[in-house]
């Protein structure tokens, strides 16, 4: 199960809430260093799936490993090896930029000198040096999200999970955000990202599309477009999502 080369493996992973099946026997794997796009409409089960992988929610059935650790029994080991940025904004609004970096760095076990170096490095990279002592609440959303991403990878995790990281920001900031993702990926970090911006899915090495709790398609963006005879990922998505709805009626 635990072959080298795979960052995440899931087999028939399922989550039920009572009668409702939020995630229905999904099977996929993510290679180390890959940027994996996890797509789906709102309510398709993306967030539930992510929460199982990062050890916030225990699965109902199926198997999965993240960084080689079991999602049932070894959640604490998983947490040491991953970074996570949730769609709900997760920095402390009443702390300054510097204080947020120091707090999360400290919680991840970085030494004081590492925290100092990281802080300087991050602020320089994000061009936020002037905002060092500003409260997070006073920053524009785009800056917050870039900062949140940088903090999510502050401990150099093997895998980073991004749950709709670019929701609500302008195209330029999204582009900058993806540059951060590429940079992390070039250093060997595996990126697992959910989004519903279909143009963003073109940036991924491989994508899966979830429809009603199942993975309906999984391939490279180019492969998917070929299979579905589509010119863009938007079209692929519509073709996948529509027939289900029509079939329901």
């Amino acid at each position: 199960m635990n072959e080298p080369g795979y960052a995440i493996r899931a087999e028939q992973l399922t989550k039920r809430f009572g009668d409702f099946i939020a995630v229905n026997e999904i099977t996929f794997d993510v290679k180390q260093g890959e940027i994996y796009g996890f797509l789906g409409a709102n309510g398709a089960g993306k967030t539930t799936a992510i929460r199982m992988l990062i050890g916030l929610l225990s699965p109902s059935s199926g198997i999965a490993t993240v960084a080689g650790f079991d999602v049932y029994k070894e959640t604490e080991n998983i947490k040491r090896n991953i970074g996570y940025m949730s769609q709900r904004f997760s920095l402390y609004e009443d702390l300054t930029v510097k204080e947020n970096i120091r707090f999360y760095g400290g919680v991840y076990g970085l030494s004081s000198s590492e925290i100092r170096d990281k802080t300087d490095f991050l602020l320089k990279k994000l061009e936020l040096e002037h905002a060092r002592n500003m409260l997070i609440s006073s920053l524009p959303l785009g800056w917050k999200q870039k900062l949140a991403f940088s903090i999510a990878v502050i401990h150099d995790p093997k895998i980073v999970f991004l749950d709709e990281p670019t929701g609500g920001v302008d195209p330029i900031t999204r582009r900058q955000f993806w540059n951060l993702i590429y940079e992390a990926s070039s250093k060997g970090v595996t990126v697992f990202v959910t989004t519903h911006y279909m143009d963003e899915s073109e940036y991924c090495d491989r994508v899966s599309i979830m429809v009603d709790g199942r993975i309906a398609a999984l391939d490279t963006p180019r492969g998917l477009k070929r299979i579905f005879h589509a010119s863009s990922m938007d079209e692929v998505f519509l073709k996948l999502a529509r027939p289900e709805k029509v079939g329901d009626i």
Partner: protein
Amino acid sequence: MRTIRFLIQKEFIQIFRNKGMLPIIFGMPIIQLLILTNAATFDLRNVQFHLIDRDQTTTSRKLVEKFTSSEYFIPVAQSFSDEKGEENLKSNRARMVLNIPGNFEKEVLSNKVSHIQFIINAEDGNAAGLTQTYASNIVHAFAMEYQSVWSSVDNPKQIKIDYSFWYNPELNYETYMIPGILVALVSMIGLFLSGMNIVREKEIGTIEQLNVTPIKKHEFIIGKLLPFWLLGLFILGFGLFVAKLIFNIPIMGSLWLIFGTAAVYLIVVLGIGLFISTVTDTQQQAMFIAWFFMVIFMLLGGLFTPIESMPSWAQNLTVVNPIAHYIQMMRGILIKGAVIGDISFQVIVLSLYSIIMLTLSVLRYRKVND
């Protein structure tokens, strides 16, 4: 251990950056001590009474003078008819009617049994009882004086009672109330602030970010408890200081014992607060539940009404009421100079309580949901 340090640092920054916080820390002790000690008094003074003196003699006037010169009674009206007195009772202008019949002096001088009447508003039974006691004492003293002056026979045999009030010889009301008010203060700070704290992180979503870090449960709980524990001890110290400065309350026992017991007690209160925050999802819910317990604990805690006068089932309930235990301890230490041996029962109960509450909150706090 380093993780805990970062958590505590973060909490303190947040506490002191919160603009509403400093007024709470310094304002609440002063306001509570000043208002509650002066207003919530059991003492009965200045009872307003309506006088009906049908005798109009030297003797009757002497009796009335006894009433008016005491600090307990103030005459507000006078009439010759019962109806006027009744009216004043009804409209709350007077709490008592003192009725002296027309042949009062004659009866006194003739050594017959003489009569006067008190009509007391007994809506509040406690107050009525006290009024009656004070009034009877005055009449009794009056009778004794008359007996010694007018009686031709030597004083009949009588028993004189010497009172000796221990621990609070001047029956100083503040001395009795302040330890309890300090307890209420510390309890409120502990229960509400800790109760709100985790729920707030749930509401803004940062708890999820913490739950994906390798932070350990006990680190999290300690990191959340310790700041408010220190804050609680500080506020107790500040409250004691204010009480000493303004009311000059006695501090008979050792300060070590005061803060030692406070340290244990705060763990109980904070533990309850943390537990509440682990079973609720919004600050509103947490606040409501915290208030529910606070009100019950306070009313049954012996701050305003003595536990001894509660029905026995309510007295038994106080075993699980941390506030009741701590009020007894604080009164014992501050007023009576109790040492640890005198309060060992409460110390044991609170210690057990703190262990249970901590265990429960650690168990209830989940990093992984089902």
